[in-house]
């Protein structure tokens, strides 16, 4: 995969340098954008927003929706949106606030596009800032759903989350099998992918491409960043024969560094992409879902199949599997282990970044989205069998599916806990996972 473009060391350096410069200048565009927003100061600070439904490029204000602003559980104020859909609440001081939308007050035919986002839990307000928050509303089916309908919608959501987890876990699983290390910074690669795509498509400081056009450059950039990390950090550490424990600790330090760096650049509030944000649901049988979900699932399955083929039938795939099986033996039979690592990093990071873009499309882009997903990725890996890449894919799908379906019976706030509970139960009763081998665990 990297053979042509990256084989010549000089070209390799050039490509990496170009990407580094692009990323760097891009993030400054972002920062300036954020700073410019701070200029919009008035006396006192407030949280405000506009309630509107965007349907076929047409904006329709929604009146009378109740909003509740609170700080650490203490209610600061509640208002209803006016005839133009606008609302605002004065807040006493700079700080973190929660904004909740009373779903019951939404008029018939209007719904949150993401029913889970009824509350924004960390709205940061600066001194004197007029902070705009956004709830995305869409023309919804307000008829109450039957059990079958809600379950089948959850199935689609579950497959979507499963697809995202599976895509993101391939890189982690491959790296684990060749290096024996859990890369705790892997979640940040998910976030990185989502943010690179945000930079290219939505950020006012970026080139403002359509998101679909931004996906491939995102994967390319992420792949190069992955390669850069292998070059700059992991390869030197391997040369020094740092043990697995040391590598794991480095990865957790690195994850902290990367996560908070992304937070500094991107800011705390979640932001949606400008494209694929609101879509009319398509309906078939008992399912009603925006088409983007089906696209995500389909594309992910195709890519995973492709990745599997690559691993099974190509030379580099065979080499990766050989290194995973026995590194010394592979090395002594002439396989360039460093090259295998590099390719694995590039491909793994690119796929992970795509997982991040999908997660961003499904929900929104947020600084700790990847870290939250990481625990579910781990759960998927353990469920499928640690160290088996196909297992990780299957396990990822299964975990996503289980977690989403469980929300039918269990409160949404337990979502991640359910995934982690599955992980613990699996370790107790079938530690080798669904597809693993007993010999690998002890």
């Amino acid at each position: 995969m990297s053979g042509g473009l990256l084989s010549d060391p000089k070209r390799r350096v050039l490509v990496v340098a170009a990407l580094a410069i692009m990323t760097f200048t891009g993030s400054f565009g972002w920062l300036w954008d954020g700073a410019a927003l701070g200029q919009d100061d008035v006396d006192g600070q407030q949280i405000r927003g506009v309630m509107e439904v965007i349907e076929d490029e047409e904006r329709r204000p929604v009146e009378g929706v109740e909003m509740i602003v609170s700080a650490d559980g203490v209610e600061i104020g509640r208002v209803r949106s006016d005839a133009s859909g606008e609302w605002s609440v004065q807040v006493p001081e700079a700080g973190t606030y929660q904004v909740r939308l009373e779903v019951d007050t939404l008029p018939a035919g209007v719904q949150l596009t993401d029913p889970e986002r009824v509350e924004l839990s960390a709205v940061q307000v600066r001194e004197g800032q007029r902070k705009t928050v956004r709830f995305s509303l869409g023309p919804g089916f307000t008829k109450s759903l039957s059990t079958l309908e809600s379950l089948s919608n959850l199935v689609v959501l579950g497959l979507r989350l499963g697809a995202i987890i599976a895509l993101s876990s391939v890189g982690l699983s491959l790296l684990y099998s060749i290096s024996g290390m859990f890369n705790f910074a892997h979640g940040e690669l998910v976030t990185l992918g989502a943010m690179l795509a945000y930079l290219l498509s939505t950020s006012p400081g970026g080139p403002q491409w359509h998101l679909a056009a931004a996906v491939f450059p995102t994967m390319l950039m992420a792949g190069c960043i992955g390669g850069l990390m292998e070059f700059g950090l992991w390869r030197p550490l391997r040369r020094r024969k740092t043990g697995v424990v040391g590598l794991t600790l480095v990865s957790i330090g690195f994850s902290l560094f990367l996560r908070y760096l992304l937070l500094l650049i991107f800011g705390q509030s979640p932001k949606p992409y400008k494209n694929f944000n609101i879509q009319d649901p398509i309906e078939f049988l008992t399912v009603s879902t925006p088409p983007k979900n089906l696209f995500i699932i389909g594309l992910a399955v195709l890519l995973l199949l492709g990745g599997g083929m690559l691993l099974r039938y190509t030379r580099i795939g065979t080499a990766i599997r050989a290194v995973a099986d026995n590194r010394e033996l592979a090395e002594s039979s002439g396989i360039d282990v460093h090259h295998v690592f590099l390719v694995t990093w590039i491909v793994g990071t690119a796929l992970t970044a795509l997982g991040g873009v999908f997660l961003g499309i499904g929900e929104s882009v947020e600084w700790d989205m990847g870290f939250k997903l990481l625990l579910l990725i781990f759960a998927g890996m353990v469920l499928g069998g640690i160290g088996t890449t196909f297992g990780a894919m299957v396990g990822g799908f299964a975990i996503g599916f289980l977690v989403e379906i469980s929300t039918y019976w269990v409160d949404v706030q337990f979502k991640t806990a359910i995934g982690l509970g599955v992980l613990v139960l699996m370790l107790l009763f079938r530690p080798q996972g669904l597809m693993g081998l007993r010999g690998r665990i002890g």
Partner: protein
Amino acid sequence: MDWLEITVDSLRGSVSLVAAAYALSSIGLNLQFGSAGLLNFGHVASMLVGAYGMAIVVDLGGPLLLGVLVGVAAAALLGWLWGITTLRLRADYLTVVTLSFGEILRFLIRSNWANPFTKSVYGIQRFADEFYDWNPIPDGDYGFEIASNPIRFSERQLWVMSVCWGLAILATLLFRSLMRSPWGRTVKAVREDEDAARSLGKNVYLYKQQALIIGSVIGALGGILLGIETQNVYPDFYIPLVTINAFAIVILGGAGSVWGPMAASIIYWFLFEWLDGVINSAMTEGYFGLLFEPADSGRIRTVLLGIGLVCLMVFRPQGLFGRRREVILGGT
């Protein structure tokens, strides 16, 4: 920028209760990670169950001492649970499971379902009045000044600080005698070569399990004192970052070293406060221009913590006081 003021403030921070509580808590982690080689990424969970165990008991009307006992027992139970789920598996499962346990616990106490006991996101407040009633130190302001920059503590602060530093010293002495005992030598042998220890007839599983439980209990004591000082426990304090702070302290002090965690905690919190002071005053004086907002100062510090941890692991894995030969972090 007033360097002297920042430095004196940081000196104050380096002996404060936070430093003491982290020193105590890190001794527990040092036992698990430094001595037994168990990579516990959910150390924060020990602190959580300790603090919450105490707070819930007091909140339901029990005496504080009973609360402390419940907290400690819960931490021991947690250590045992970690053990039975992972110790029969390969070592790296422990990292994933412990990290997950911590997050599961945080989600649970945060949920509405647990609200009758944990008060969800609001947390529990004012549960340690009894502790301050025991305070033998007369009311007043204790301390001194360095070039008119005060380092002062109230009698309350001094009381909880002395208890916590006292416990940290006791825990260190316990750690030292454990490590000099046959038990400690076996644990180290297990860390170095599990198979060799097993072939000598040692029950490797049992030793690891004991290290997990003892470490978890010491960690919980740190969490309990941190809770007593703030009189406030709430779920979102107990994020994985707390564990990483503790790891940074253990590694800085030298994994497995006896006085390492205490010394490193003092140094670590000095650096922490110092960076905080420097970043904040640079921000108020406008050195960063429009680049950062005030809320960013903690984030910048965390970014630096991440870089620091990576550099420490790469360039000095044995920390300040550790012996290279003894440190499991590898490297040649």
